[in-house]
């Protein structure tokens, strides 16, 4: 089909932006800059207007700000977002981790500290005696999850409020890691998203 001549910068049906040579006025830039300033100004006054209307109880249906007010409202995180780690438990509650130190080896931030010991069950053989992750150094790359041959470490708690009053406090121990829970099956996470985004 013959391509329709478009104004440069218009959005094509496929969703891409078609760029053509700039016109003279676009190259002068001042006009475009003024248009830009116009857009931001319009946004400003429109939003300000809504804010004032909201104050007096009007126009509640129109949004003036889309900000999620974080601690009170929580935003839906995609199921694959990398959040605070947890160690998966076996049915009997013991850690699924076998202390193979793959995660410790791959960790680019060198923030995993594992000390392994003999497991009384010879079929398990090895288990972590100490398993610390220093979240103060972690870069949340998720390599540890990728590297784990036992699927024992996951970053699906959806916990992002990680803060402590000391460096020491940023270190998660094995018990804390085992206490982590997955944020639930994907459906319920989606439901959370529905709730937040209406």
């Amino acid at each position, binding site marked *: 089909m013959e391509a329709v001549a478009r104004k440069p910068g218009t959005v094509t049906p496929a969703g891409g932006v078609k760029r053509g040579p700039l016109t003279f006025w676009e190259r002068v830039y*001042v006009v475009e*800059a003024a248009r*830009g*300033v116009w*857009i*931001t*100004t319009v*946004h*400003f006054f429109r*939003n*300000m207007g809504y*804010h004032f209307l909201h104050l007096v109880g009007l126009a509640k249906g129109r*949004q*003036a*700000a*889309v*900000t999620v*007010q974080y601690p009170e409202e929580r935003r839906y995180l995609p199921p694959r977002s990398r959040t605070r780690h947890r160690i998966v438990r076996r049915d009997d509650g013991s850690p699924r981790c076998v202390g193979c130190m793959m995660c410790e080896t791959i960790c680019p931030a060198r923030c995993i500290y594992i000390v392994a010991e003999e497991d009384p069950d010879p079929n398990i053989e090895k288990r972590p005696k100490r398993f610390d992750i220093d979240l103060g150094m972690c870069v949340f790359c998720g390599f540890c999850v990728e590297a784990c041959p036992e699927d024992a470490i996951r970053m699906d708690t959806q916990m992002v409020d990680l803060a402590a009053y000391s460096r020491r406090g940023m270190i998660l121990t094995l018990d804390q890691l085992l206490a982590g829970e997955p944020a639930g099956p994907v459906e319920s996470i989606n439901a959370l998203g529905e709730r937040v985004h209406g």
Partner: protein
Amino acid sequence: MWMDLAIKAGLAVVMMLIVINIAGIHSWVERKQSAVIQDRWGANRAGFTLNSPLWRWLNPLLRPIIYLGLFQPIADLLKLVAKENWSPVGGMKWLHAVAPFLYLLFAFAGFAAIPFGDTLHVAGRDIALQVASLNVGFVFIFAMAGLGVYGIVLSGVSSNNNYAFLGAVRGVSQMISYEVTLGATVIGIVMVYGSLDMQEIVRGQGALLWGWLPKWGVFVQPLGCILFFTAALAETKRIPFDLPEGESEIIGYFTEYSGTKFGMFLLADFVETVMVAALTTTLFFGGWQFPYLQASGFVFPWGAEVAVGHYAVVAIQVVSFLVKVIAFCWLLMTIRWTLPRFRYDQLMDLGWKRMLPVSLANIALTGLVILLIEAL
């Protein structure tokens, strides 16, 4: 003699307070305005609630202040002051400490030559509402702006950080490049009003063109006005010309600063913004002039006259000046939240290959027009 000094000192303090306050409020405006533009809330958390039964009734009053984020600048300030006063290992400690002072000092100094009202007659004295009545006012302002470069160079060099150093180099070359255009555009104004004295330039703008249009710089030098404003924007090193700073990505000359010293750079930035607004107002938008307001009162083009007392006239002038400055500050802020950053080669291209030739052409054109008018 002593009285004169005291009056000048008083004017200086007034000017200083105005500038610092506008600059300080900028940090709040910057947060809140950008938020509203971008459909956000912006700062709405900083603050406190009172628990004592004695003061509890104040809480409802505090709430809107918190909501508007008005405590945020205070919190920012407290944070900056409470931060570690760090100087980089291997850097030049002394220069590192001095650089922000120099920068802020020169940013402030320029305001001395900005008139914010006409002469005030009080108790038999003539008080020029200008800190320093210099007859080479704008040369002084440009000199101060030029000296500001030292703050940047020193901060970059003394930081013992290659990124900071490169940022300083970018900053200096940018400022120097745009100062040329800045100077060239103002020549047009000087030619039109025939003076280097800021007060005289403003007075010149009180005249009327064709009997009805105020003879403001923007009307006689439209091209010069746009060029000047752009070049001045580049002088402030704010978006879209923030290559020397680029806090989050390309890293600028104050990378190694923290705490109060960093705060001074921040403040100097806002002061420069106010400076640009004040200069644009003074040179192109009639300074303290209010349309059709003469020393005796309003004289409208259609012949009507409204007599206004001297103090009221001065008050209107000062307020008019402030309103214009604030409006420009607002525009500068809006631009900062509108345009994307230039690339460095684009920046240099724009400065040297476009704006400089156009501003030179502007001078020639102005000269031609002036000659033509005189010949007629």
